[in-house]
């Protein structure tokens, strides 16, 4: 079975700074993979290279959904989303001035096609699309656990709910692979547990999950495999328990204190 995502010798340089060097790993369909490493290791840069926000300096990123492998390194981000990869952001990037429902509806954007003429003339096709968009958006809000709040303004929500909203929006793009960038950041243990439950449910829907996380409880709790990078290089990859006890990994995290969460 072709892996859903193959990263092959991926490197990214910013001028003289080598953010990523020869990163290679694979993700199988329906896995939940954790991407960990100290701050500044290059994890978000990796996400950006996959999502299309950054162009890899060298190496390949191959995405295979529906049996067709596509090399997505360097593709524009909107194309990558349309192909089936969604992501959330480390610093939560919601559409602050819009309602919760609208935020999710925008996530549905790439799966529909009505344009300005449909909007003005309100063709039956456009009407159907709008109904479907609204319906599916409500459904997704229920799924992530923030039902009935569609009319609130996004920026007025509590932090934890904003994170859920961002995940809802990402799910709205109908992805095959979802990349979550530190979804548990700033969450208390109860919220983190709820998040882990959500991640499992996302996987149960058939979506592959790649997640960057510092909260080791979450990593240990949901990830089936863990990839560790440090200073832009692959350190190791393996089962969570293996990685947790790997001396190289411990050394990489030494002094940050982020490792002793269990």
């Amino acid at each position: 079975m072709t892996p859903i995502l193959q990263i092959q010798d991926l490197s990214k340089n910013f001028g003289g700074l080598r953010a990523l060097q020869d990163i290679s790993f694979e993700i199988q369909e329906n896995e939940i993979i954790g991407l960990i490493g100290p701050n500044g290791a290059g994890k978000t840069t990796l996400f950006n290279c996959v999502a299309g926000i950054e162009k890899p300096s060298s190496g390949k990123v191959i995405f295979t959904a529906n049996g067709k492998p596509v090399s997505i390194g360097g593709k524009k981000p909107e194309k990558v989303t349309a192909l089936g990869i969604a992501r959330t952001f480390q610093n939560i990037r919601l559409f602050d001035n819009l309602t919760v429902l609208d935020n999710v509806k925008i996530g549905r954007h790439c799966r529909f096609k009505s344009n300005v003429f449909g909007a003005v003339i309100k063709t039956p096709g456009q009407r159907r699309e709008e109904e479907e968009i609204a319906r599916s958006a409500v459904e997704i809000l229920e799924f992530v656990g923030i039902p009935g709040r569609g009319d609130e303004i996004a920026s007025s929500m509590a932090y934890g709910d904003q994170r859920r909203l961002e995940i809802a929006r990402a799910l709205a793009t109908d992805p095959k692979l979802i990349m979550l960038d530190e979804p548990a950041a700033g969450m208390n243990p109860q919220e983190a547990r709820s998040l882990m439950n959500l991640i499992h449910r996302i996987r149960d829907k058939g979506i592959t999950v790649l997640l960057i996380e510092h909260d080791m409880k979450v990593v240990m709790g949901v990830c089936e495999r863990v990839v560790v990078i440090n200073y832009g290089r692959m350190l190791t990859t393996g089962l969570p328990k293996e990685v947790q006890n790997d001396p190289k990994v411990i050394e990489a995290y030494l002094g940050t204190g982020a490792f002793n969460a269990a």
Partner: protein
Amino acid sequence: MDQKRISNATLLKIGILILALVLPALPFVSQYFLHVIILIYLYMILALGLNVVPGFNGLLDLGYVGFYGIGAYTSGLLTYHFGLSFWLIIPLAFLNGALWGVLLGAPTLRLTGDYFAIVTFGFSELVVLFLTNEIWLTRGPLGLPGIAPPSVDLSWFGGPVWEFQGELPYYYLAIVMVLATIFVMQRVQDSRLGRAWFAIRDDEVAAVSCGINLLVYKVIAFGISAAFGAMGGSFFARWVTFLSPDMFKFWESFLVLCMIVLGGMGNIWGVMVGAAVLVSLSEILRDLLSALGLPVEIRFLAFGLIMVLMMRFRPAGIMPIRAVAAQMRAGRVKRRRAKATASG
């Protein structure tokens, strides 16, 4: 409670519409008064058109007058040279405006905000230069006089050819055009297209991650904005029946920008209120100053000052979009609570 709020606003709008429709019949209403109201309607169309770019998309457009001028001169020249029917000119000007919007926007909308603003500014200045210097086409500074008013040609059915006379026919035509513009803006705002625009305005990177192609949607916005600007211009030409290049200077772009900022950028009703307020202010100031024996140009002074003060004390405008209004309320509540705990 929500239900009640909506119908109050709708009642208000219906009330205003009825008032607008019967206005000419009211006793104190002179031709001059109607003229000013028509001017308000015209600027409402322009404000609604410009609102698409900074209001819906968050892009600064400093060259709106360029499209207004293109529309006006298209309309004026087609009438002057070919006597084309106004009812044909409206869609032609609209499409021409859209075309120029796309032509200008496609290569330039990939630029970052400030650069794009500068380019739009340069474009509108070039339009004025062109209108001034291409005398063979536009008669330059001499202006284009004697543009025929619109007429309704019923000779097909054996009826008369009825030409617009006085302000009344323009008045109702303007109302129709404003209503049509509002209709389009409302439909667009509440659609996949509108949502894509708001996403671009709020966070471009997030918008892209939702599959939105920034350039395509920005160009569409710019084209639509230009189309309405040109449509307003086409009306203007056949209403005032005289055009000259200095009617389309940067000041007009700034004025319309002030209207949408003053009224509440991004809010359809807000920008219309802004248009009404600024046009009225301009006329009131003109009357006041000439009554006081002061030079009429001082009103520009007042304008400049008003804009500076608005930006300082109420940058969100008279009727901000819902999210901003909510934030402001929340801010006020917070401050009131803080004051209460501080003094208590």
